[in-house]
């Protein structure tokens, strides 16, 4: 199925728009991340990679494949298994103007280093009153994979996004992955870059402009993946794919859903979300993480605060189940939002089904 990718929100480095033919090149998210890292490392010798298995193993998920051979062991560092230690080392190096890209094998392991991400990286510019900036990127897969159990499946978007001083990005497609990673590496502030393991192998069409080495996406700007007029569905990372599928199903039933790919969790693009809700009057937020104090909670509150008068229905929040991730495949399927859940929520918001009293 050829997804019509809207290019409205890509701000090109040059002003001319091109006609995009349908024979656009396809690229997996993995290739997108790899090429973004490659290009940024080649453009700026201060960029270096650090993490477990990023070098000789070619990356735990092969994201950093080929980079060790190209740039050598001084710029692609295989670290011992010491998240707290090497994250702190990355922060210290960033204090002195180097641009480390620290990889966590999964963001669950970042909990061992969270002190450095928040206390040494996020807060330093503030504590030093602007003297010390920290141009570091923390990247890695976030959220649930397939059957990896409770300790490897948590989504950290809400945790990091609540912290001032951090920028939190979460790409969906290859274009997002490339543009946002390049922007993150060039950014003078600490960026938490939340990827998704299950998306690494997915292919997306990319235009020639995306393949250009100076392509960058703005931080803090969401993208409207699909336009609609009946209900706004916000999502990030893998859930964007689910939301788009749900929108297809809803379209067949006569509900035109507008899907917003958040791209940036912090700063949240409140203006795009609110503008969309003011147009459609209904909101469904989708996320994979735990429901309490989640990203959806923040979006709902933002809409209620700013666009309450425009709402025709209560805001709907779809999130993962409020339990640690179970292992059994059928339970895991129930613990993560599925396309049907999104469809049901959208219909509830449109009063096309019996309204439920509480989350099912």
């Amino acid at each position, binding site marked *: 199925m050829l997804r019509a990718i809207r290019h409205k929100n890509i701000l090109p*480095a040059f002003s001319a728009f091109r006609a995009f033919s349908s024979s656009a090149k396809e690229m997996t998210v993995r290739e997108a991340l790899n090429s973004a890292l490659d290009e940024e490392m080649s453009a700026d010798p201060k960029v270096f990679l650090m993490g477990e298995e990023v070098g000789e193993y070619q990356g735990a998920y092969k994201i950093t494949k080929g980079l060790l051979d190209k740039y050598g062991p001084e710029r692609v560092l295989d670290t011992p298994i010491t998240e707290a230690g090497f994250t702190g080392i*990355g922060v*210290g190096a960033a204090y002195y103007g180097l641009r480390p890209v620290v990889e966590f094998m999964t963001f669950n392991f970042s909990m061992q280093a969270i002190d450095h991400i928040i206390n040494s990286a996020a807060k330093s510019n503030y504590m*030093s009153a602007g003297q010390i900036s920290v141009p570091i990127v923390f990247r890695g897969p976030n959220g649930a994979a397939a059957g990896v159990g409770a300790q490897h499946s948590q989504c950290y978007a809400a945790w990091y996004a609540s912290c001032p001083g951090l920028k939190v990005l979460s790409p969906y497609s290859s274009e997002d992955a490339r543009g946002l990673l390049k*922007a993150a590496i060039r950014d003078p502030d600490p960026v938490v870059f939340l990827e998704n393991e299950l998306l690494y192998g997915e292919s997306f069409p990319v235009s020639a402009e995306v393949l250009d080495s100076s392509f*960058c996406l703005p931080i803090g700007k969401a993208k409207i993946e699909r336009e609609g007029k009946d209900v706004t569905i916000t999502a990030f990372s893998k859930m964007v794919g689910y939301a788009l599928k749900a929108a297809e199903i809803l379209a067949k039933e006569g509900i035109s859903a507008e899907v917003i790919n958040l791209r940036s969790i912090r700063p949240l693009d409140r203006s795009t979300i609110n503008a969309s809700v003011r147009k459609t009057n209904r909101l469904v937020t989708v996320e994979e993480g735990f429901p309490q104090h989640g990203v959806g909670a923040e979006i709902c509150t933002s809409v209620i605060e700013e666009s309450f008068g425009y709402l025709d229905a209560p805001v709907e929040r779809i999130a993962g189940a409020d339990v640690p991730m179970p292992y059994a495949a059928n339970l895991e399927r129930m613990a993560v939002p599925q396309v049907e859940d999104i469809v049901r929520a959208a219909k509830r918001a449109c009063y096309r089904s019996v309204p439920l009293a509480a989350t099912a």
Partner: protein
Amino acid sequence: MSFSATNFAQPRPVPVGIRSNEKSLSSDPFRFRFRGSPSFLGSPHSLRFNPTPPLKLAIPHSRRSPAAAVTDVSNGKMVKSSANMLFGFVLQLITKEEGLELYEDMILGRFFEDMCAQMYYRGKMFGFVHLYNGQEAVSTGFIKLLKKEDTVVSTYRDHVHALSKGVPARAVMSELFGKATGCCRGQGGSMHMFSKEHNLIGGFAFIGEGIPVATGAAFSSKYRREVLKEASADHVTLAFFGDGTCNNGQFYECLNMAALWKLPIIFVVENNLWAIGMSHLRATSDPEIWKKGPAFGMAGVHVDGMDVLKVREVAKEAIERARRGDGPTLVECETYRFRGHSLADPDELRDPAEKARYAARDPISALKKYMIENKLANEQELKSIEKKIDEVLDDAVEYSDESPLPPRSQLLENVFADPKGFGIGPDGKYRCEDPKFTQGTAHV
């Protein structure tokens, strides 16, 4: 294995036990210990402490550094003839200028901390304030050997490290008062002193947090020299932390990586025997911290941290090693804090006798005595230094009092280095649209 100040051998595992009296020490002629007092001093409840250092520790073939002289002199032993004489001539450890510089720095540290206590009780300072009284020899001994480009990373007990590194007393005092003229414009406070100009990069409240950051700063120096080919990038990093931190995981992680990658860093342990109210001996399976260096393949040294000249000797060697690229050193400085952990600490658990013993080894009095006895300075000159520092501090307090509080607009500033934040550049447009932002030719 321990090392004398003038000889750092490669570490080899040597069984070491805790000695509690000098007899066993002198029975082992090949144990070089660079210290002026017998081994591990801990809570008086478990070890016997002999206050008089066994001067007869004249081990036959010992290469006792002449720096051993200072504490011995201050303890009333006339050792000039044996210790100050090496190969038949008198070695002058420091020149008069160096001596006065060290003295002034230690006096500044001491008087500053005393002034902090006064200001705290008058309500001008608030929150957590951790004072450094008694440990000045470590700060002065190490930091006065550094260049301006070298880095210092500290903990919450960072006022004196900031002063030794060159941050003006005015800036530190205003920061403590929370005024806009402070070194961090009042946004950091007592525990978060940062000065980019003086390469003091914190000020970390969590113990162990500064160690990886310091290791990263050392890493950046190596990276600049080897990858970015900046030949002049030989800056060295000092990480200061306490005995309690030496039980923290991050400490070991960094010892490993610093030795693995041969980073130009010196890990300075200010072992003052107490982590708030927890005695080092109650918290640590093997209290001799310097031994943990050789376990990771780096030199581990123990030094008497109440003696600034000894600290300086050890520091010189360690800094030179780091600068020429031979990797890290772990230095354990045995020292003591005369005050409580912080101004809120009632300090009831420490034995007054222990405090008195260490008070007798006050590093400032020891240096004063050394300088006078070795005719490096007279009472008058030292008194004039003290007077000068008094004036500096009075000026600092007055300046801080008169400085304005931070304006309201400052609350939301500096969260991001990005001036307008959120990927928006100074001209109001998205940064990624600016051709300069996307500059750099990627050769792919």
